[in-house]
């Protein structure tokens, strides 16, 4: 991987790839019809099929199949395609944490993850945290300690807080604050958020 940022468009690269792809041992993630076209040295008109690729993910225990452009982020896929808008877009650059979701149980910023990178993964969003009407202990604690005002960062804060407890980074208020610093709250609910996490941790509640 070299770091020159050559913006020059090598227009033939896609066709080259199509022609040569049968030589490649790797799994090129392309629709099978296009792969066949490529293997038979077909014309680049098939190339537009490359614009979208298949995706299989599980979100909140529900399986989804999609056919999407690789440039779609996990965040935009959740919000715009699945209409799971509990996950928020705060900066779109990994600088605020509003888009925090769990992927295979770990917290990540969904704005800097391409949806297609999550093939086969289990994703949990804020919508998947409560058990129906029964709130997750962290959600309950956020209400009790008023861990939010406008509510926009809240989904990310709660997803992050749950992960923080699971990770075991809750041994002091200072440690909680440090490990919650990837979630910006402009309303300034931080001390209340720490109170909520302390309560959940000390309550030994299952997270």
């Amino acid at each position: 991987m070299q770091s020159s940022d050559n913006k020059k468009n090598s227009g033939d690269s896609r066709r080259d790839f199509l022609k040569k792809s049968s030589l490649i041992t790797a799994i090129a993630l392309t629709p099978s019809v296009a792969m066949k076209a490529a293997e038979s040295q077909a014309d680049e008109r098939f190339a537009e099929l490359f614009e979208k690729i298949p995706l299989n993910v599980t979100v909140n225990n529900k399986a989804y199949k999609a056919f999407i452009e690789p440039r779609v982020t996990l965040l935009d896929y959740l919000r715009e395609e699945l209409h799971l808008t509990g996950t928020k877009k705060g900066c779109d650059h990994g600088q605020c944490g509003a888009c925090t979701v769990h992927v295979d149980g770990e917290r990540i910023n969904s704005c800097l993850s391409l949806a297609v990178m999550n093939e086969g993964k289990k994703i949990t969003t804020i919508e998947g945290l409560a058990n129906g009407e029964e709130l997750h202990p962290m959600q309950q604690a956020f209400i009790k300690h008023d861990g939010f005002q406008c509510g926009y960062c809240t989904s990310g804060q709660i997803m992050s807080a749950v992960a923080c407890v699971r990770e075991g980074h809750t041994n002091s208020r200072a440690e909680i604050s440090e490990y919650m610093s990837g979630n910006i709250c402009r309303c300034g609910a931080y001390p209340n958020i720490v109170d909520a996490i302390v309560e959940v941790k000390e309550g030994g509640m299952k997270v």
Partner: protein
Amino acid sequence: MENRILKDENDRVDGFLKVTGGAKYFAEYELPGLTYGVLVTSTITKGKITALDTKAAEKAPGVIAVLSHLNKPSAPAYEQEGGSQMKIFYTDKIFYNGQPIAIVVANTFERATYAASLVKATYAKEEFNTNLDKALKNSKAKKLQGQPDYKRGIENAYKTAEIKIEQQYILPIETHNPMELHGIIADWRPANKVTVYAKTQGVKATQGTIANVFKIPIENIQVNSEFVGGGFGMGLRTWPLEIATVMASKHIGKPVKLVITRMQMFTMVGNRPTAIQKVGLGATKDGKLTGITHTAFGETASYENFTEGVVNMAKFMYQCDNVNTSYTIVPVDLGVPIWMRGPGEATGAFALESAIDELAHELDMDPLDFRIKNDPEMDQQKNKPFSSKNIKEAYKLGAEKIGWGKRKNKPGSLIEGSWQTGYGVSVGVFNANRGKASVKGILRADGTLLLQSATSDIGPGTGTGMGLIASKLLNIPTSKITFELGDSSLPPAPSQGGSATLSTIGSAVNDVCVALKSTIAELAANSNMDATSNFVDVLKKNKLPSVEITKESQSGKERDNYSMYSFSIHFVQVKVHSLTGVVKVSKIVSVGDSGKIVSSKTARSQMVGGAVGGIGMALTEEAIVDHRYGRYINNNFADYHVPVNADVPEIDVIFIDKPDFLVNPMGAKGMGEIALIGFSAAVANAVFNATGKRIRNLPITPDKILA
């Protein structure tokens, strides 16, 4: 708004929705045929667009339209002369770098984003200036009076005082940057019916602006804004980007959603502008203030004037016979500012409250004692008594809580290893505003109360507060009360700003509840029931499903006879690392003297939030413009440092909690602004106390401590 059974009546009524992701913000409404808009912005700071090449963008996959000054739809108000010059798509002029010049609409967000990158503008550039300091030094640069000069007693009396200080204080641009990105969904339907989902602090204001720009009847426009992901003032106007989106929807006949980028949040939706202030203070040797002079210069845009209350506090906060102020606004080639939390008063308080601390130091007086000594009995500016003011009690409670007794008046006295400890204090004050609003109340036989008003909730907990007011008056549990807001079809209310919502809307809620109560009493009397009968029984007996009352409420003449303010005192302990210059705010006690506390939990949170905002203002926040290019260099959340969790200690909030019934029937004054106003000075004063270093230009970053 869904109202779940609350565990505690002080819990937020929308808490369930907010912690489950169920609260819908503007960008989250699903509309059939929704399209995505992305803005193209200017890459020069001043000049004219000479050509705009949109061909490549128009041909890009999924693109529906590219709209600019070349092909905009009709917006009659923009065809007229006058008003602000920023008539989006009706001008080829560039007033600032990052100004929207086109909107690309496509069937997906990704496609619109890519196509926007293909639009190429050519410009005729002109000389520009984005630097306030440079404009001040240029005698030819335009300068405008921001507020009439004020004078009582002798002008510049401080100059001849026994003890005096004279200093300059500089605040950089600070940006609101609420967590929710700004934008709008606009849906222009046949027969000029327009529905928008907006991020606004005032649905009626947005409705009025759209009606005015497009010259369509106000009732044709429906504005929805139930949940707003923070505003801090940014949503107090309808921005050109919103009008652009409405135009785009009108043009293509489909709903268009625009969500601007975090980078664009720095340029096109206002800021707290750079301010350069000079404060001169004089006192007698025994510490009586004899002169205050506060002179302020603030930025405005070249295309629109912006003013705020930078020098207000100097006129009444301290007992002083000789006060003069002036406030000048200076156009620079940046986007127009907009009031940001605490607005000008917070800017001014940094200077004045730092200066007070400096003067106390010169006098070798405890700054708290100095403030108490100069606490006014009445408002000398208005020549009226204060409706209520419990500052001395607030000083006492806060000082005890923070451990003010441990403070040494000599700076740099408390040292532990590489860390120096210091204490600082500052006062905040803001008008106890109250406007005019209407509320509709519907009391139902099923035991519930529905309240409606076209107000907003950008985070303080409007519905929660209103529910508590109604609950106490009608003796209904808050779980049975629903407060609807954020909808322009509801009874009219002003925008949420200036710490006035609780006072304004709450008073109308109060009046509605009082009227409902007497209606129920009348019905009870008419049906031979006891006057204290439960309303459910009364309605049932009268075979009424509900009773409905709408009331408009506003201040009486008390406002003419009294000076009405909310006050806050901020106590701060800081630790300063002498080798690395790192400043940590280690303790905070904020005392609110804002009348009766209606909603204890949300009120406390508001004070906490103000302190966190104050840490940002004092220590970390500065939007930096490279004046050679007129472009922001740190226009993102990695480089523009909003405080994070680890920056914030535990915060003690104390309320005086004494009602002031002259202000409104609840006796409650607003507190959104006072939570922040003055805080940055308390930090700077604490840093001085810790180190002996007086930092007069915010933010107080490590480099300034080491300098």
